């Protein structure tokens, strides 16, 4: 089989494409179950056991337990599914998540958003 052509990349903007969907299926499937409160509660009661129930691999489990959002994306997490984990389970809002990914404080992240309007 010939090598696939190199993908177009946009710096700082990870694309949830077919490679990510294949890599992240178990992780995203687990996050999809967070549409139900009973499942959110079960995850909170034993995070690693819940991850294993869905067949997450070590890199995915580590990204979950260390709350490493950029790593969660690298191991195939789709943002809308990760949002259920971050928002519905961990109680983070999008500015918390933005700050975590960009290495600034939440207040600095919010100030950047406001500045984009000027």
């Amino acid at each position, binding site marked *: 089989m010939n090598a696939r052509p190199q993908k*177009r990349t*946009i*710096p*700082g*903007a*990870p*694309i*949830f*494409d*077919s490679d990510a*969907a294949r890599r992240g*299926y178990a992780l*995203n*499937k687990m*996050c*999809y179950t*967070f*549409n*139900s*409160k009973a499942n*959110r509660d079960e995850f909170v009661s034993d995070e690693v056991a819940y991850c294993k129930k869905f067949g997450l691999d070590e890199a995915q489990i580590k990204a979950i337990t260390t709350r490493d*959002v*950029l790593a969660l*994306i690298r191991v195939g997490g*789709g*943002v*809308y*599914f*990760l*949002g*259920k984990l971050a*928002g*519905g*389970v961990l*109680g983070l*809002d*999008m*500015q918390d*998540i*933005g700050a975590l*990914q*960009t290495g600034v404080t939440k207040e600095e*992240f919010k100030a*950047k*958003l*406001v500045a*984009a*309007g000027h």
Partner: protein
Amino acid sequence: MAKIVGILNTSHVPALGKAIHLNLQQDPYWKPFFDGFPPIHEWLDRVKPDIVVSCYNDHGLNFFLDKQPTFAIGTAPELVSADEGWGIPTMPSFPGQEDLAWHIRDSLIRDDFDMLTCQEMLVDHAFTLPMALLWPDQKWPVKSVPVCVNTVLFPLPSARRCFKLGEAIGRAIASFPEDAKVLVIGSGGLSHQLEGERAGFINKEFDLKFMDSMVSDPEWATQFSDLDLVEQTGNEGVELLNWLVARGTVPGPMKVVHSNFHIPISNTAAATMLLEPV
């Protein structure tokens, strides 16, 4: 005959759901966005649409990656708001307009659009929030037809394809034999990005150009690929595809009844735009 009386495009930031639930419309943070709606409420009181056709994107409520359609249409009698895991309060169910939904569905498939047909359907914030913004008492005076566009898994349907889908929906509505006044909704955008090192990206200049294009040059944005749109508007800014579907339903220039643009609501350049046929 059914007639499109207007197109309402609006952002659907999830945090709006909590703001509505907590009655924060006059809070200084939220007010600049909610203030875009009283003129639209006056228009709704005057025009009284009977049916909504809402073009939106599901975020992992009705669809998961096990079965991810590019385009779907809801022919269900009841469109159900449900827990989507983001902490957004649910709303009363929405009555479906089954006759029009089946008519559009049949017409689209004959018109070469391979729609997935949903006889049961859950609708997430991208469908429910625009409805709650239009009718804050949540006593829905309309029946609805949901049209769902994949913005989850790339490649996305192209902007050109989305516009053509809108044109085909417009033809289907025009051939619906019942007298009805239809409001078409385009839900989502404008520029925002939740993930990655560029999270928080907003592009005011592009958004304003895009809003201008909605009036008299609606195919302007169809020149861009999905990745072009990510580059210009952020990963989730691609939801402007729903605006393109909606805008495609009415040929030619339109008149702005009211528009509003405010940065930021959550991570988003929040925009609202009501257009009327000329």
